[in-house]
């Protein structure tokens, strides 16, 4: 039951992008089209889920067991970096066109703070294994939701009559802020 709540909380209420403002870089960088947004979201979800599983195992069976919690940051980063490398190889092999459209943002998932945030939150809140998986999947889905919403809005913005001073980055940031405001409406619905 707790896992379900954690899943919903991570996906919507405490959305990594719109509530914690983690992972803003790909959120603003790759959200120009819905299609690439979805792909980026799915790639990130995949990395997040695997990260959650592997960092939980490392944290539980190595770091806590040998009393090394100060190594969390370093080991988590290593785990994330290796996973991203793996995803990159996999996407490059399976879908070259997706590989090209994600471009530099694919290797940059490594430095996506939403993923490190996920691993650190998981360790801090002492989730069980099931809860961690739910947290990872939920976080990834929440990231995808934010990406797709942003992609949809930005596709529409292409045809909108925007004052010249606000064209491009300023408008994107404004929209991001408004989306975050909208998501604040979920705040407090669950306390997980």
């Amino acid at each position: 039951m707790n896992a379900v709540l954690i899943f919903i909380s991570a996906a919507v209420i405490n959305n990594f992008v719109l509530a914690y403002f983690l992972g803003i870089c790909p959120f603003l960088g790759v959200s120009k089209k819905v299609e690439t947004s979805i792909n980026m979201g799915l790639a990130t979800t995949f990395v997040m889920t695997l990260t959650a599983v592997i960092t939980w195992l490392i944290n539980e069976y190595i770091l806590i067991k040998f009393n090394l919690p100060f190594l969390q940051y370093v080991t988590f980063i290593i785990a994330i970096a290796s996973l991203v490398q793996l995803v990159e190889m996999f996407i490059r092999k399976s879908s070259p066109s997706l590989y090209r459209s994600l471009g530099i943002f694919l290797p940059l998932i490594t430095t996506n703070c939403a993923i490190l945030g996920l691993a650190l939150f998981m360790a801090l809140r002492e989730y069980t294994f099931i809860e961690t998986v739910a947290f990872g999947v939920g976080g990834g889905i929440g990231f995808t939701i934010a990406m797709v919403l942003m992609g949809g809005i930005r596709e529409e913005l292409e045809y909108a009559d925007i004052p010249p001073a606000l064209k491009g980055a300023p408008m994107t940031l404004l929209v991001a802020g408004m989306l975050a405001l909208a998501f604040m409406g979920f705040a407090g619905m669950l306390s997980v």
Partner: protein
Amino acid sequence: MDSTVYIAVAAMGGLGLVFSSFLAIADKKFRVEEDPLVEKIIDALPGTNCGACGFAGCQQLAEKMSQKAVGINACPAGGQEVTDAIAKVLGIESVATTRQLAVVLCRGGNEEAKRTATYRGENTCTAAMLTGGEKSCLYGCLGLGECVAACSFGAMAMSDNGLPVVFYDKCVGCGACARACPNDIIEMHPEDRTLFVYCRNKEKGPVAKKACTVACIGCTLCVKECEVTGGIEMKKNLATINYELCPQDDVPTHKCPTKCILDGEEPSITKESFYASKMKDAG
């Protein structure tokens, strides 16, 4: 205490080994056979990822080149040298590359253009553009050097007169300055062009004349003098050269009353000579 250090080192080392061996296996499994030509072409390209070719970077251009989807002279920044090198890699005849150069189409510096305001604020042209800038002319150079900042080849500087200067010995024609200029006064032209209208002012004659001493006042003298009909046209009170029709050398440009249309007078300042004269001025 000591044991913690050993355990930490062992744990990190062990994890590193596990991950790296894992990745090594994955690399073998998921290896994508890349065209070896692509890598050779990338080596031949400048590698600055300036984007002047229209692709995201040198990698993408190299891929397209290896598939023969674009010509081997598609790298505007590299020039003839790079084209020759790529031709060598691909084992085909080299083709001529026309060098593109940035041309600053405004001569209204601090001396020529009338100043009506003092701008204080964010030190970029884009920001100054919101206020209309310091000059009475709304179409000219804003003089804050956003183009100079955009140039990643060190081929531009601001002159003492407050106008950008392009060093044609350094310009590779990537067009970053043209994209950076909010007033679009910088244009990219093939290097064999010498005839330019150095003004962008679209106001009627009297207004333009008041704003700047070297403005195009829309007198249509050049239109009449041009040998080919339609070689030069007036578009919104501004003389516009139709490069496909207009002969480069037969326009009597000295007839222009404000000397804003010029032939072959694009200053061929080199980076060295520019800074040498600055040093001299400074004593």
